[in-house]
């Protein structure tokens, strides 16, 4: 068999460049296999993350020929033959070394998703009654392997670094949708999504859906339904009027507070205390 040329980006925060490695081709290999042979041969110091080699851990995300993809799930023989295979790190996150990026932005955003606040139990023994049809909508989102390629490809932060301070991103939007459509949940995250999580920044161009290795319909089943929920609460004058008439009295914040079953607990015990002025403060 012919040789395969792999053009790998090598570098760290001080800079980097592409290096070509020509390896003998082996049938049935994935991109990660070739990288492993490069590590075993010409470049033992090549840094890349991987773990399961089965498309299930979400560690080996990179950009192969310019498109975000899992290195362990991209077969060499599906890429154009006779051309070098270009492997670069994810563009949206800060580089650590070679193909390894610092994805902590995603964990920061994940900590700001208000968790499930369950309603009062259905039965005296503290249990709930749920049917399969109640939970199956959220099950699609549980398939996420946190590869963060959707976050990487999203042009809102990929092309506009400054938006990171106010943008949860598609991976977090599916988490929001899972909770917002959860039959037990009582939290209302719609204003949060609108004001601070940047739901309005997404222009539904569906790149997240295109790259998701778990084929989660991120845009159709999470982002658009969330946008519609925000329309319900913030942009729909008829709905607003309907609520006014139906409910008539609006409870004060203190009243709501008093009998709310579980207020949102910020999960970020480790985060620094916020500055009083900034929402999500940018720091450097």
């Amino acid at each position, binding site marked *: 068999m012919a040789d395969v040329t792999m053009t790998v*980006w090598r570098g760290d925060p001080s800079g980097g*460049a*592409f290096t070509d490695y020509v390896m003998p081709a082996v049938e049935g290999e994935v991109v990660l296999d070739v990288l492993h042979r490069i590590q075993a041969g010409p470049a033992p110091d090549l840094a890349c993350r991987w773990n399961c080699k089965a498309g299930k851990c979400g560690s080996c995300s990179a*950009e192969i*020929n*310019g498109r*975000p993809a899992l290195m362990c799930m991209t077969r060499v023989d599906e890429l154009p033959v006779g*051309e070098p295979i*270009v492997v*670069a*790190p*994810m563009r949206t996150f800060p*580089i650590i070394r*070679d193909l390894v*990026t610092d994805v902590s*932005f995603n964990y*920061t955003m994940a900590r*700001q998703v*208000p968790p499930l606040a369950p*309603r009062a139990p259905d039965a005296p023994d503290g249990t709930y009654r749920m049917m399969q*049809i*109640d939970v199956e*909508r959220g099950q699609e989102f549980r398939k996420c392997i946190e590869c963060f390629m959707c976050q990487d490809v999203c042009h*809102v932060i990929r*092309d*506009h*670094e400054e938006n990171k*301070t106010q943008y949860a991103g598609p991976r977090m939007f599916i988490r929001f949708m899972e909770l917002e459509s959860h*039959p037990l*949940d*009582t939290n*209302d*995250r719609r204003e*949060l999504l609108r004001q601070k999580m*940047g739901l309005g*920044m*997404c222009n*539904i*161009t569906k*790149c997240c859906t295109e*790259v998701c290795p778990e084929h989660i319909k991120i845009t*159709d089943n999470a982002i658009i*339904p969330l946008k*519609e*929920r925000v*329309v*319900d609460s*913030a942009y729909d004058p008829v709905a607003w009027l309907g*609520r006014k008439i139906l409910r008539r009295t609006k409870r004060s914040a203190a009243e*709501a507070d008093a009998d*709310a079953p579980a207020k*949102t607990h*910020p999960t970020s015990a480790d*985060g*620094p*205390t*916020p500055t009083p002025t900034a929402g999500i*403060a*940018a*720091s450097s």
Partner: protein
Amino acid sequence: MSREGDELGVSTVEDLRPVPVMLGGVRGGPDARTLRRDRWWGSPLVTAGFLSAFIVYSTWAVFQNSDYFVGASAHRDLISPFYSPCLTYSCGLAGGSGRGWLFIAWWTISPGILVLGGPLGFRLTCYYYRKAYYRSFWQSPPACAVADGHGSYSGETRFPLILQNIHRYFFFIALIFNVILTIDAVMAFRLPGDGGIGVSLGTVVLVINATLLWLYSASCHACRHMCGGNVKQFSKHPVRHRVWKFLTPLNARHMQFAWASLTFVAVADIYVRLVASGAFHDPKIF
């Protein structure tokens, strides 16, 4: 549209303890617009070409102000979807039909302009077309992992794009248009002269047009949300769950319905135009 849980829910926007995001880390990879070498520009180019062609054709057709109606005298009742409902007196003259109470007498410019806003607004704010024109015309982004090249970006958070949020109102307007175009399709079953019933190629064209428009509206994301998507506990709302289940596979094909119905509106207009101008005789099928 209130939903279950609204009474219990607490707004979480005040409760957020923000965690600072680190900005400005050095990014890896080269400073290139994209590393893609496939034909990523193909799809936005085709989309832009198709949408432009439709815009050019529909503008031309709407300003024609003639040949949009085939009255009973020529054959049967066929009306171009661009001109329906026909609100002006000129349609009465063109068609000689008896729907006179709607007609505006003083309007002499094309009656197509009067009804343009509804379908146009519906398509402009449609979640699918938004994707299509953001990618193809606005280049934001032109394709996945290709830089959008704009200096700053605020998505749909500011005027005028924040107005995209009124899509559901256009949905209801579109439903009215669907009903009218369905009536038009039913009218096209009338045989010329004595009022018998028959099918011609024109009937088929208008029926397909109306069907595609219904499929396009039924697969709308706002429709899916309002019909059942906004329910939290489906087991308490079995009917809405069934509707939602029915709409979900249609919704997955929203893009196909969007293109098919757009194309067919133009096809129907061309067909009516050909018949009305006498260039083509609407053949009877049975």
